[in-house]
Each structure stands twice: as C-alpha cells, then as structure tokens.
C-alpha cells in the first residue's frame, strides 16, 4: 500500500514537471502573444495540479488543502488567460499568420 501511493506520486511529479517544461518552452518559442497564452495556460493547469495530486497521494489523511488549491487553479487559470487575451487584443497586438479575426469585426471603436 505504502509504495503504491509513492508510485502514483512519482509518476504525477514526473508528468507535472514535463508539462511545466513544455509550457515554458512554448512560452519562449511561440510566434505571437496569443499562442504564447495557449502555452502558459498549460503550466498552471497540468503542471501544478499534477504536483498537487502527488501531495494528495502522499498525505492521504489530510488531503483537503490540496483539493482546495486544485479547484482554485482549475477555475482561475482560464479566467486569467482570457483576461490577458482580451487585453492584448484590445490594445491592438497583431496576430501572426492569423486566418480570421472575429473580435476585430465587433470591436470597431477602441475605448
């Protein structure tokens, strides 16, 4: 029983770190702001949440704190990405290699 929980924790930490590395790599390599947002969103959701799964697996008795943090991250992550994305579009940051831009049609007059 003891080693099985540790096995889950080791797996979760490895996969979480892999997602963090991929997210930061995406943040550096992506061409423009909006694709960069896509990459960084992964770090906060998959990276930290998987680490928290490791904490939940390792401390089976008091798992409440980890779950509260998981819920906060899963709810808060997309909200911040959306806020940054709309802020970027509103101040007019161009999209590289964009096929269509639906928001531009709606947003004729900047505030």
């Amino acid at each position: 029983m003891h080693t099985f929980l540790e096995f889950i924790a080791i797996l979760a930490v490895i996969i979480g770190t892999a997602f963090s590395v991929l997210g930061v790599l995406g943040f550096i390599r992506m061409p423009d702001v909006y694709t960069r947002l896509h990459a960084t969103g992964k770090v906060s959701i998959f990276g930290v949440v998987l680490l928290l799964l490791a904490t939940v697996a390792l401390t089976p008795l008091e798992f409440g704190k980890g779950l509260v943090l998981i819920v906060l991250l899963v709810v808060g992550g997309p909200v911040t990405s959306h806020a940054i994305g709309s802020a970027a579009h509103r101040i007019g940051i161009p999209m590289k290699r964009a096929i269509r831009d639906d928001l531009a049609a709606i947003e004729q007059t900047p505030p």
Partner: protein
Amino acid sequence: MSDILALVLNIALAIHIALIAVCVWRVWRGENVIDRLIGADLVGTLMLAVLVLIALIWLNAAYIDVALGLAALGFVGTIALAKYIADQQMF
C-alpha cells in the same frame, strides 16, 4: 519516504527553479507589455509549483497554505493588471 521519491522531488525542484530563471529572463527581454504580464503570471505559477514541491520534500503542510495564498493573490494581480492594460485606467 523512499529515496527514489526524494530524488525525483529534488530533480523536479531544480527543474522548476531553472524554469523560473528562464521566465524572469524572458520578462526582462519581453517584446511588449503583454509578454511581460504573461511572464509575471508564469513566474507566479512556477513559484506555486516550487512551494508545493518544498511542501513534499520537507513534509510540512504549511507550504501548501503559502501556495494557496500565492495562487489567490497571483490570480487577482494578473486580472487587475490585464484590466489596467486594456482600459488604460483602473476603475
């Protein structure tokens, strides 16, 4: 705690600290203001991961509370900054 787990946790901690350094360099060199905002948010998230790893390594649940506080404040801070950038005034 078996030594494999301790090894994996320490390696993950080292990787996350290196990622934070990369992000801080990227925020320093950022092309536009939104890049810096994304970088700052990313540093906050990676700091969250470092705190959780420290909680695991030192087996002290207090660091999860610190991570909770950082998550809440980082979230509000990023939203406020994004709104300030979009509308050029806060309220």
